């Protein structure tokens, strides 16, 4: 049942759409639908306040051109394409960067407390971008955006246009002759399965669960949904592009992110000249017997070395093989007080280090999945009736995402997907509440899963709740295998060895149906990385160190009868704009 224990307000005669995920992409999509009078069912494992979007820190990119640097949308476009090593669909990136200034202004009008000075919005430097283009609220930008959008959506909940299913797990899609006609979810509180008819938008985040304890994200993003989608025939793309964020620290149970904003505000990365290779990470003071500090990124890349794209810095750090430290001691008192007070508190709380006085030992950690559900420019997947947006979709970031583009991609992607669902006529958007025959909505409560036998429904129940020790152990082993295979530096030998271990694990263990699917998804990661015989962005092959122009294509993963197939697909060329503006930007290309 939906929240409040009532029946679904959307009765048999109304048209509704199902959004799986209530983070930034899901909320943005919901807002887009309700403004057009389309009813929304917002399905999430936990309420929006628990979503990973709340953890996003440094900011959101848009060429607002408020910093007197003559920033343009064209430069945002070019930086994003270059940062992604030309692997994103340029048409999509153009859509994204053109919409960015308007979206940030909209968020501002929802009351997001973006940093201002004398009433003027201020933007900060971020990696891979030459201009100050990142709007921010200290180091809690994601949380601030979420608070504003949660309030905005609440208005439509009260009006009956949005029905929340806030403690419901995605189980599977309902397929009918190759099209998606609904979704089966499970009410975790009542332990009942519910089938909701209508088109589906997946906005279910990254696949942290495959790398449990090794990412900066949340435990709630288990990747169970993605594993199910893959098994149901949904195509994925670019799984080999896994973002290792340069400045993370291992804390108990996860990796703690130290926002790129720290470097945007002047932080520097260095290593010690004489320090032995990879010592135990620990507190540090002045140089002493470790010799002088080497600011290796500045030495190699010049003044902006600390703000190179994340893939570049992480690769340099791994190749360096030494403990790297983040030097924030040069930041002004004002910067700490006004722009990064929350970050300082967090570093002190978890590491016992005051970053204003001491150096912070950091290392690369998994932070973002550039790859995901394959979508076209309209956010359609390979199955009609299914769309995807936000981190779960492979959309805007190519081989490496720029900091500040994920919040933007989530808000824009959610909106774009919602618009194309309406344009595709997946639902009647006339606001009259009358149903088109195709989109008729009906809620049917299936028998309690516990009572269903012979189809494995009983065991599905416990996959994330009270799952057994053995299952946890298998998940731990999958993580271990993937961490070896999908390490920042890879080669054929390490990838094949990981595949072998995964096969052995699959044979040796009595895995549940859900875990078998998880192993299949893990396999898809390794096979994608094996197939891409080049180095590009976040994917570094020691045996293929060069970028291969012929591989400027998307890796496509499909699954049929339990077998993974990998292929490459051409990236669409940039279309001339219909309003006469070219890529180089005419009038409409400026903010």
């Amino acid at each position, binding site marked *: 049942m939906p*929240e*409040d224990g009532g029946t679904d307000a959307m009765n048999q005669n109304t048209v509704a759409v199902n959004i799986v995920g209530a983070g930034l992409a899901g909320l943005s999509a919901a807002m887009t639908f309700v403004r057009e009078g389309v009813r929304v069912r917002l399905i999430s494992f*936990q*309420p929006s*306040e*628990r*979503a*990973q979007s*709340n*953890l996003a820190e440094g900011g959101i990119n848009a060429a607002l051109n408020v910093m007197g640097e003559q920033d343009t949308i064209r430069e945002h476009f070019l930086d994003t394409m270059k940062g992604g090593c030309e692997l994103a669909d340029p048409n999509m990136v153009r859509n994204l960067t053109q919409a960015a200034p308007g979206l940030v202004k909209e968020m*501002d*009008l*929802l*009351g997001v*407390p*973006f*940093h*201002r000075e004398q*009433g003027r919005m201020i933007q900060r430097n971020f990696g891979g971008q030459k201009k100050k283009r990142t709007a921010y*609220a*200290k180091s*809690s930008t994601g*949380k*601030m955006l979420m*608070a*504003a959008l949660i*309030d*905005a959506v*609440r*208005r439509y*909940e*009260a009006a009956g246009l949005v029905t*929340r299913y*806030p*403690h419901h797990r995605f189980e599977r899609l309902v397929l009918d002759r190759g099209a998606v006609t609904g979704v089966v979810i499970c009410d*975790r*509180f009542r332990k009942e399965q519910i089938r909701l008819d209508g088109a589906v938008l997946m906005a279910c985040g990254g696949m942290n669960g495959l790398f449990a304890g090794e990412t900066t994200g*949340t*435990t*709630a993003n288990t990747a169970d949904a993605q594993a199910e989608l893959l098994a149901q025939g949904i195509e994925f793309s670019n799984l080999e592009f896994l973002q290792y964020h340069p400045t993370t620290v291992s*804390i*108990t*149970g*996860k990796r*703690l992110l130290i926002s790129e904003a720290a470097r945007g505000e002047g932080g520097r990365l260095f290593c010690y000249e004489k320090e032995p290779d990879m010592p135990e990470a620990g507190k540090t003071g002045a140089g002493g017997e470790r010799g002088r500090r080497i600011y290796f990124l500045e030495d190699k890349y010049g003044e902006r070395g600390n703000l190179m794209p994340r893939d570049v810095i992480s690769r340099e750090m791994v190749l360096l093989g030494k403990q790297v430290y983040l030097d924030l001691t040069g930041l002004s008192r004002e910067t700490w007080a006004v722009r990064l007070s929350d970050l300082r508190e*967090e570093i002190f*709380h*978890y590491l016992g280090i005051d970053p204003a006085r001491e150096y912070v030992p950091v290392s690369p950690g998994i932070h973002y999945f550039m790859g995901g559900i394959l979508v076209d420019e309209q956010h359609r997947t390979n199955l009609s009736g299914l769309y995807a947006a936000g981190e779960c979709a492979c959309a805007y970031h190519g081989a490496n995402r720029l900091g500040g583009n994920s919040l933007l991609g989530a808000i824009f992607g959610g909106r774009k997907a919602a618009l194309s669902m309406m344009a595709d006529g997946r639902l009647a958007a006339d606001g009259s509440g009358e149903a088109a025959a195709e989109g008729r909505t009906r809620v049917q409560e299936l028998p309690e899963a516990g009572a269903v036998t012979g189809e494995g429904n009983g065991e599905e129940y416990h996959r994330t*709740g*009270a*799952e*057994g*020790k053995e299952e946890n152990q298998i998940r731990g082993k999958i993580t271990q295998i993937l961490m070896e295979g999908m390490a920042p530096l890879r080669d054929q030998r390490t990838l094949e060895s990981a595949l072998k271990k995964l096969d052995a694990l699959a044979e040796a263990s009595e895995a549940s149906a859900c875990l078998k699917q998880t192993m299949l998804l893990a396999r898809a990661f390794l096979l994608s990385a094996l197939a891409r015989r080049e180095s590009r962005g976040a994917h570094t092959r020691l045996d293929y160190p060069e970028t291969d122009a012929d591989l400027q294509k998307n890796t496509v993963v499909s699954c049929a009868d339990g077998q993974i197939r990998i292929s490459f697909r051409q990236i669409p060329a940039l279309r001339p704009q219909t309003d006469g503006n070219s890529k180089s930007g005419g009038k409409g290309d400026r903010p």
Partner: protein
Amino acid sequence: MKKILHILRRESAQAKPYWEDFSYETADEGATVATALASTPVVWEHSCLQRRCGACAMVINRIPALACNTRLSEIASDVIRLEPLRKFPVIEDLLVDRSVMMQNLRRLSVWMEEEARTGSEEMAFEAARCLQCGLCLEVCPNFAAGGTFAGMAAMAPMSRLIARLSEGERKRIARDYKKGVYSGCGKSLACRDICPAQLPIEDLLVKSNAAAVWNRWKGVMKQN
């Protein structure tokens, strides 16, 4: 470091609760109650594991807290007693149903209908940091699920609005603020001490009261 987790479990809301012990051993000084719980089959809510999402609120050695924000090394006793929050219906083990918080925010119309004004960014920022974890309600002597008083879990989001709302919406929010927050608050401020996000609750309360109750909007707007 070895600890015994003494956990109040139950299979469902209707089932009889029982105590079960799990032992947990670790050399990790940073290990938290959340780390220990992850090694058990006990059902509990978790997500960010870094004090940012409010999922893992529970009662730890009789004190409401986030499991991810409670280090094992800081607990003197060898036995750690874990119970679900008491102000909310129990679903299973340590999992409770906090839907009443969302219902209250809907009831009190916590949203903007017009465009936000600029200014008071600092107040809006602090207010929007609220995790909606429910710990403030757990310790509040005035809050009961189903009552008209919605507690500080509603005060914080409402004070975000008070900071940024356009003039046209003041009357609306003032009415709901008085009804849902001001009239029920006994000012014990237990919420201030328990808040895992360390929201400046007193400050937000003083400013919001001044604006919404005493109609001194100008003063609030001037401050940041």
